[in-house]
């Protein structure tokens, strides 16, 4: 079975034989001598042609956050079916979720820099969240128009609260 993996802008295609042990892997028509063992729910040991890698892999939305050499990257995996669906334009678009600004930690909305209707540039300051005695500045991940704000200054918000929405 073919697998397409995406790390940032890099794409790697593998031919995987999952029912052999160790799992057979081919990259660019070259067989890779691969031995992967799960050590704990989130840790794996991987030997590729003798090289030893200790990997931490957690699920991260549609993909996996993989830590190798203390660097974490997001890896998206598509199998044959997924690749086909993509070709026919049938995969789910996620652009509508990119503009949803959600806080990853609880805290206090200390300052709001923008108002509904504002044109927002990528990396523009949006608001300040006070948490752990520090002021945390949140910037926009996208460019677009601010369609709504769901909090006001002084609000205490929980982790995961939707703060504002930007239409791309």
């Amino acid at each position, binding site marked *: 079975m073919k*697998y397409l*993996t995406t*790390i940032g802008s890099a794409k*790697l295609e*593998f031919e*995987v034989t*999952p029912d052999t042990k160790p*799992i057979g892997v081919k990259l660019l028509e070259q067989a*890779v001598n*691969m031995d*992967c063992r799960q050590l*704990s*729910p989130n*840790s*794996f040991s*991987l030997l*590729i042609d003798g*090289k030893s*890698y200790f*990997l*931490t*892999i*957690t*699920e*991260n*939305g*549609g*993909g*996996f*956050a*993989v830590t*190798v*050499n*203390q*660097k*974490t*990257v*997001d890896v998206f*995996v598509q*199998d*044959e*079916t*997924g690749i086909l669906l993509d070709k026919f334009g049938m995969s*789910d678009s*996620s652009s509508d*979720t*990119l503009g*949803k600004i*959600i806080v*990853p*930690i*609880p805290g206090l909305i200390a300052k709001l820099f923008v108002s509904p209707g504002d044109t927002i540039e990528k990396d523009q300051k949006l608001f300040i969240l006070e*948490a*752990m*005695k*520090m002021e*945390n500045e949140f910037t926009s*991940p996208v460019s677009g128009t601010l369609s709504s704000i769901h909090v006001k200054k002084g609000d205490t918000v929980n*982790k995961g609260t*939707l703060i504002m929405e930007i239409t791309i």
Partner: protein
Amino acid sequence: MIQKILITNRGEIAVRIIRTCREQGIKSVAVFSDVDRTAPHVLKADEAYPIGPAPSAESYLNVSRILEVMQASAADAVHPGYGFLSENAEFAETVIRAGLKWIGPSPDAIRLMGDKMAARNLAASVKAPVVPGTTEPISDIRTALETADEIGFPVLVKAAGGGGGKGMRIVSRAGDLEAAVNRARSEAVKAFSDDRIYIEKYLEEPHHIEIQVFADTQGRVISLGERECSIQRRYQKIIEETPSPFIDDQLRRKLSDTAVEITRACRYTGAGTVEFLVDKYKNYYFLEMNTRLQVEHPVTEMVIGFDLVKEQLNVAEGKPLSFPDKHLHPRGHAVECRIYAENGFNNFAPSIGKILELDFPQGPGVRLDEGVRAGQEITPYYDPLLGKLITWGQDRSEAVERMLRALQEFHVVGIETSIPYCLLIIGHESFRSGNYCTKTLEEIGSTLEEQGTSLSAEAAIAAAVGAIRRDLINTPAPAARTLERPQNSPWSMQGRKDGLR
């Protein structure tokens, strides 16, 4: 003789103090807020008592509840650690009035040196150089502007009761001064209920260098050498080392002598730290004195071989310090990395959540002072310091290479930490060469951010193969998988975006 110590703190410093207590045959008493019931300091102490809800104001700063624990536990001494009540003169007085030993300097010394203005005046009285600036709090914006013009821009706006970057602003132009003063004032009021603000000269390529001092009740005052603390993010230290690669023996002696004089002048007892700024021309200026054990005290311990908490107990018991009479003979080099729950590549955003997996570095020359355990929930209520990794080496190069090795051995799943960030700083040419100042981190920040997610081709293949393998675990029957794939949740997309940039 002290029999039982109440530790009014949490996290790594509480664990650190418990360890010395145990080695000294002294019972330790921990206090804990509701969210800390299963935190390491509670598990490791001989006794532990609840002191209230999660917010510090209702627990770790809740003096009346702590007084009750003092009685219930029949402790005969109090160690405040750092932060929380450690530099609160009133609390120290309360402890002493209750008949317990206070493991720290006298309330008078705490009060005197806790007031930046008073400390500056005291330093001036022993002819210690201070950074040019206001000696009185700023009353109105016009005087502020005059002073700033006099000492020259850029200037630093600072809160009298401040520290750790809180209530601090750099101002480059006269036009920005008023806003900066107002913001610093509002932060200062919030953080330490003290609205006094002053202005001082901003220095060129400044180094943050501090001297560890110790004084006993017999009148002996000693310098234990310097710590280089110039690697800071958000005005907070993240990497420290000793000796400083920047200063020479002559400057070292001058800083030590000045620190000892200041310590003597304020009739200090116990462990203290005198902080200096040193500019690129090796001019040095007294900054402030921290009247407590410092977070980064382990680097000093590693090179001098003495347990500073043990010495604090000696002083509290009225015993002389056990350092040798003449020279201390520090050995080798020590580096410390603070392990914070934060993402160094995303504006140091704090990271909270449950620690799912946790393995610490081990082996020769490695010390870990930890305050967390696997299974623990990291909450947003307290300082995000998870622990400190300290490495020692025969020389600076050995200590630095060992730090790189040790940082690589960490394994933390469930929260983000400063480990990847520290690795890149330590590995960066500026740090390796020892040629850095307090501005370095800002300058190399974007380079580090780029390196943060760039993998070698080999490592990328490993990551990809690992992800495929992990994917196979999720979906043993690959064909069924795509249909079952869950909708991307908005929050996980946020994580995704962070990871990719």
